[in-house]
């Protein structure tokens, strides 16, 4: 069991600060996502942790042992960190068994029987049939290649496994199932995982902690639910899940916006806010009712268009009073209004607010 601790890690490429003063703790046995748009520095950070890059400043500690600090760097091969790159990157000249056994040392690597056993064990762990052992990488589907790549990373029993956008090349259906299988295998192996991704669904659904990065900086690190409910700012909110962002005036734990009077999440900072704020609501917090007139509270809006997803639908709206105010709501798929319809918009639950 390990804790991975980053303290004030920075890394530049020329004038560009790819990673800027990042501190993060990854608890043992958990899976943490590094989430951010492309170019935010998350892959650079991962490569610093792996030991492929040295930090310019700050330190990386594994289980209390500093593995990277300026001038003192344990090489990647001695860190005991598993690494699953994009698209798996299986060794094309080796079959599945040889790929998995590549990093095995000592007895497990030398003895033929031990090796076969370990390979079988790992294939089980990533839920692939044992008969796959003799296949060549190009005979596997993309999802299967990813699982083999994970098995290969897990084989030497590393305490930390780093996954660099491992599912980005898979199609949507495969992505979800592969993601679940991979995380399940990580947990089964008791390994701590760090997953780089730009896919917020993936981050929220698969991990215990999400670290959001923007322009090299760590903006927020929190459990998925916490992150979703209380994003650090409007940009994080927009990036993690859809967001309805409205100007509002706050006072005593409540805020007044175009949708009326809204409660603020009952945490100290928000409750203390006064005056002009930016209000962040989640689309599913907007409840739509077919209605010709606003009766009690709420606001009237016209449906611009509807994105139907089956289980739910996203509805874009414009306020009748002020057509410049655009809203996004998520409703039950079957009861979604038609475009052009007029609806009443009510807010359910508290909103997060950020000083303007």
């Amino acid at each position: 069991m390990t804790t991975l601790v980053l303290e004030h890690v920075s890394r530049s490429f020329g004038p560009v600060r790819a990673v800027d003063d990042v501190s993060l703790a990854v608890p043992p046995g958990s899976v943490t996502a590094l989430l951010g748009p492309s170019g935010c520095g998350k892959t650079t950070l991962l490569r610093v942790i792996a030991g492929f890059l040295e930090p310019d400043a700050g330190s990386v500690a594994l289980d209390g042992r500093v593995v990277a600090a300026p001038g003192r760097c344990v090489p990647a091969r001695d860190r005991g960190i598993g690494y699953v790159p994009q698209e798996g990157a299986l060794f094309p000249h080796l079959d599945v068994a040889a790929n998995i056994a590549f990093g095995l040392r000592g007895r497990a690597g030398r003895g033929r029987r031990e090796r076969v056993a370990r390979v079988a064990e790992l294939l089980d762990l990533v839920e692939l049939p044992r008969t796959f052992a003799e296949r060549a990488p190009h005979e596997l589907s993309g999802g299967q290649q990813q699982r083999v790549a994970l098995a290969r990373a897990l084989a030497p029993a590393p305490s930390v496994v780093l996954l660099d956008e491992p599912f980005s090349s898979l199609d949507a259906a495969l992505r979800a199932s592969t993601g679940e299988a991979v995380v399940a295998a990580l947990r089964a192996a008791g390994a701590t995982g760090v997953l780089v991704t730009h896919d917020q669904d993936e981050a929220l659904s698969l991990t215990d902690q999400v670290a959001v990065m923007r322009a090299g900086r760590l903006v927020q690190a929190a459990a998925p639910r916490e992150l979703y409910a209380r994003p650090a700012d409007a940009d994080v909110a927009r990036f993690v899940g859809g967001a309805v962002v409205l100007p509002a005036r706050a006072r005593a734990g409540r805020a007044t916006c175009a949708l009326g009077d809204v409660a603020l999440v009952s945490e100290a900072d928000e409750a203390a806010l006064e005056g002009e704020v930016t209000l962040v609501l989640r689309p599913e917090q907007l409840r739509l009712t077919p209605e010709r007139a606003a009766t009690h509270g709420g606001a009237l809006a016209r449906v611009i268009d509807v994105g139907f997803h089956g289980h739910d639908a996203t509805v874009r709206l414009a306020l009748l009073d002020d057509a410049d105010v655009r809203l996004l709501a998520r409703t039950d798929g079957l009861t979604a209004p038609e475009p052009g319809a007029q609806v009443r918009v009510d807010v359910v639950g508290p909103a997060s607010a950020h000083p303007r």
Partner: protein
Amino acid sequence: MLTAVVVAALALVPLGFVAYDAAAVGPREAYDLLWRPRIGELLWNTVRLVVGGMLACAVVGVGCAWLVERTDLPLRRLWHALLVAPLAVPAFVTSFGWVSLTSSVQTYAGAVLVVTLAYYPLVYLPAVVTLRGLDPALEETAQALGHGRLAVFVRVVLPQLRPALLGGSLLVGLHLLAEFGAIQMLRFPTFTTAIYDQYRSTFNGGAATMTASVLVLCCLLLLLTELRLRGRRRYARLSAGSARPADRQRLGRWTPVGLLAAAGVVALAVGVPTYALVHWLVVGSSTAFPVADLLAATGTSLALGAAGAAITVVLAAPVAWLAVRHRGRLAGLLEGSTYVSTSLPGIVIALALVTASLRVVPDLYQTYALLLSAYAVLFLPRAVVSLRAAIEQAPPVLDDVARSLGTGPLETIRRVTLPLIAPGVASGAALVFLAVSTELTATLMLAPIDVATLATRFWSASSSVAYGAAAPYALLMVLISLPATVLLGRVSAGGGDR
């Protein structure tokens, strides 16, 4: 990086020599030398031979690759082996074969025909590899969009073949710029034959190297054109799914035509020179089989070929590595500089190395070490081209993975990089071997004394009209080239069956 710079510097010795010598010619004299009708004529001849040869090689190479890879032509494996076989026949032997049978090839068309037959495998090989690796989904998509077979080939397959086509054609073009033996026999005057003539007639090195500088310009033009057309090349990468082999085009009643085309190319490229050699063996009164001489020359050719191949590949490795892993202006410059000497006639390179080695390392003069460096300078591009393609098959992420699995740098090279690039190393080495074992001018001037190769023996006999005596050496040259040729055929065919 430093090694690559040293290698490039070595490769640039001949260019420096050309520049130095050409600079010694006064501007007035240079003007007179370069501004005369004969130069225009030579330029026209060189350009049309290079362009015609490149185009013809591209057509024949891609056509044959398509027949072998994308149609249900019977006996495809046999055809593949036979279509690679011309690599085993040195260009001047092909030329000799044709010329000794008929003088009708001694025209522009004939010259293009003969050089095409000698050099088309340089396009055919990479084309076969690319066609095999091409995702059939691309073609299917295009067909679904309503394009006919031909349109699909032109609009989808050909663009994918572009890197192979350009790389292969570039090699053909560079060789044609510098080719002397074959073209001289074809009586088609080009810049290179003119440079030899100048050395022969005026014994005026300055004038000859002045002319050579025009060749350097032609070479740069070719390189730039290739670079322009190559554009941003897509890296080879592991597929996200399993690759399907492509459906083959049914030839149906066209099968005899396909067979005839393949047989025709093989007959013209391999059959004619072989027939000519056998003919001379049988009818020539000077035919003799001096066993000891033949064995000695064969041994020397084999050893020089192998050593030359090994050294050239080793020297090419850092250049290719830089070109792939650290793309940039410097890497491009270094890579480009290795190509220049390929476009220079052998005599210019040999004289440059005579001058340079006597000044810098007189003790190495006319030793194997110097001879092998000369081979390396001459044939670096063959190795760089193959290695570059191979290194692109070994993306750096694999190194990262290996390191994360506890592997040290040397072990990574042994367990990951080498196995992956081995086919490329092998084909690079084979290409260099083929070139070295038939090289003439540099061998004549720089080999240790009393060392004779099959090529020098062949030259010596054929230049005294003793065709019968020359033939056994040529046949042996073909024979020792066969293993390398087979290897090249295997590597190109084996890409997909692991």
